[in-house]
């Protein structure tokens, strides 16, 4: 019987290690998923600064770029783009700006997070300079124009005629609002509201 117990013990150790590893694997899926999306450009998750390798200017092709602005929940700033859409030739560099205003009584810090749709086109929209690369600080009651320089890669596939560049603005002021979480403070709880 002791021999069996010894074998059981060795096997249990290995099986427990498998369980712990798989628990870790569940969490490893999070960065893996991010890397996968970044490599394939899925989900519009191409956020880093990039310049096109191809420098031709394709005057005969026209691609519409639309700008969308959103505030994350509980973000009080007003946030809008100077233009709703522009029509660009691939290879052309274009500068536009986004306007923000802080209506509150205190200095706040914000971070904009971009997303490009359709995902297939994400890697062909190059942000040469973007306000989303940095945190933006704004004094109480102040306004600001934030610049964005983009260009469309001439390698963009023929079937893509329009791209949408969407920004969501997050409150990352240190303090009670909490960093980037957005779901810490006054999160919506419909069920609770109904109950009370």
């Amino acid at each position, binding site marked *: 019987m002791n021999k069996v117990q010894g074998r*059981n013990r060795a096997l249990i150790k290995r099986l427990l290690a498998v369980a712990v590893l798989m628990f870790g694997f569940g969490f490893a899926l999070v960065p893996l998923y991010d890397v996968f999306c970044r490599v394939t450009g899925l989900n519009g998750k191409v956020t880093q600064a990039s310049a096109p390798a191809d420098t031709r200017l394709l005057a005969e092709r026209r691609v519409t770029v639309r700008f969308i602005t959103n505030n994350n929940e509980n973000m009080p700033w007003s946030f809008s783009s100077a233009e709703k859409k522009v029509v660009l030739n691939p290879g052309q560099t274009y500068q536009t700006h986004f306007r923000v205003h802080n209506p509150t009584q205190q200095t706040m810090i914000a971070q904009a997070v971009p997303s490009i749709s359709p995902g297939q086109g994400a890697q062909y929209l190059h942000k040469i300079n973007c306000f989303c690369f940095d945190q933006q600080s704004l004094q109480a009651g102040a306004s600001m124009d934030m610049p964005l320089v983009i260009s469309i890669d001439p390698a963009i596939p023929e079937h893509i005629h329009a791209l949408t560049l969407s920004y*969501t603005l997050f409150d990352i002021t240190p303090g009670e609002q909490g960093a980037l979480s957005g779901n810490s403070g006054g999160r919506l709880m419909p069920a609770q509201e*109904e109950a009370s």
Partner: protein
Amino acid sequence: MSAVGTEVDTHDDHHHGPARGIGRWLFTTNHKDIGTLYLFFSLIMFLIGGSMALLIRAELFQPGLQLIEPGFFNQMTTLHGLIMVFGAVMPAFVGLANWMIPIMIGAPDMALPRMNNWSFWILPFAFAMLLSSLFMEGGAPNFGWTFYAPLSTTYAPPSVTYFVFGVHMMGISSIMGAINIIATITNMRAPGMTWMKLPLFVWTWLITAFLLLAVMPVLAGVVTMVLTDVHFGTSFFNAAGGGDPVLFQHVFWFFGHPEVYIMILPAFGIVSHIIPTFARKPLFGYASMVYATASIAVLSFTVWAHHMFTVGIPLAGELFFMYATMAIAVPTGVKVFNWMATMWRGSITFETPMLFALAFVVLFTIGGLSGLMLAIAPSDFQYHDTYFVVAHFHYVLVPGAVFGIMAGVYFWLPKWTGHVLDERAGRRHFWLSFIGVNLTFFPMHFIGLAGMPRRIPDYALQFADFNMVASIGAFLFGFSQLLFVWNVISNIRKGRQATDQVWEGAQGLEWELSSPPPYHSFSEPPKVN
């Protein structure tokens, strides 16, 4: 139960029989007692989860809102799913494994008897915690058993925390159970019981245990992420913080798809015992059954995104997951054809376990075929989140997993209690269940194809007739389960003495023990030819 030892134990240092009173059940390390506990627990959960299903079907009897609030309806769909999956089907299989695996492989008990006790006794606490959320402010979890973020994070009721810890406890219980089963099968086989002589129930359970070990920790991980998103300001699934709600679906279904095979593979094993017994022929294609089960298990890790065809995965992904899913039909088909070949020219009799096993083969195949329809990515865009999906997974889970469990219980009950089964009562239960289950779930195919979405308390008028039929069927099926309870209890209490072999064609070590088997069996390992 009257599982008192009838043979004289030759070892003086052993107990001769079970302890008396409630302590027997609280502190038991005997695999037969723990198997019984698991089975009764899952029966109670089956009745609770079933009552919730009847509330759902009562509300859906007619269009409009009659009986329950939409919020409470959502709590019912959520709890019905969670209780049936984690409380009824899985513990029932673990109970059957506890009872049968040691006596099928000639082992004196499970490898880790104390851990066995613990893995059972966690469960009542886990489900008490989950069910207690019904009485909390904000109500029970209402986000579906799949708890998609942000429904389970940003918009969750406060009771989500109880849900998370409940799932943690169920996960710990399942992982310990799986480790125990793997250790038992690996190390405790009687001499001569080689791998390719293992009974198929043991094989399917071994593979299931590895699936459990691989994916229950991932489930624990994903509920932990939900927990930290809700309480500790992380943003795994919150786009606001750089996370992604679609990530939730990937991690969840990485667990979820192997989970559906966890709920069906042991039933394959049970049916592979019953059909040869009542066809009085050895199982056709034993080795191909083993390999088919293993390939289903391996493939189950590569198909998870077929639950997410509509989230916007790229074409290459849709194609990969579509073909991988369809590939599972091949080993599954091997099994179905093997069962048919086993019956071919057999001397078949139709006792209650055989009726359930035959219904299993036919109705599970219907569920498998609707699964193939859902696997076709372009069609899935129409079927997604409709009653067609509800019809599909209920066909594989109710006349699939649940009929498999009931077939197993009727098959082995005379062995456990020592009393011959009351065939008339068993058949009555079978036919009412068979008619009820088809009346409930078959019309759901049609209303699903016609576009009725799932998880809603109200529906458009054109779906009214089929919903009424489904509700009538659900009540028929639900109440005929009381016959099952009656059959089991009355068999425990009285009946003619069963022979050791119980069924004429039964083969295997478990049929060489007395009926009921002694409290401690195979203290000396048997000889296996």
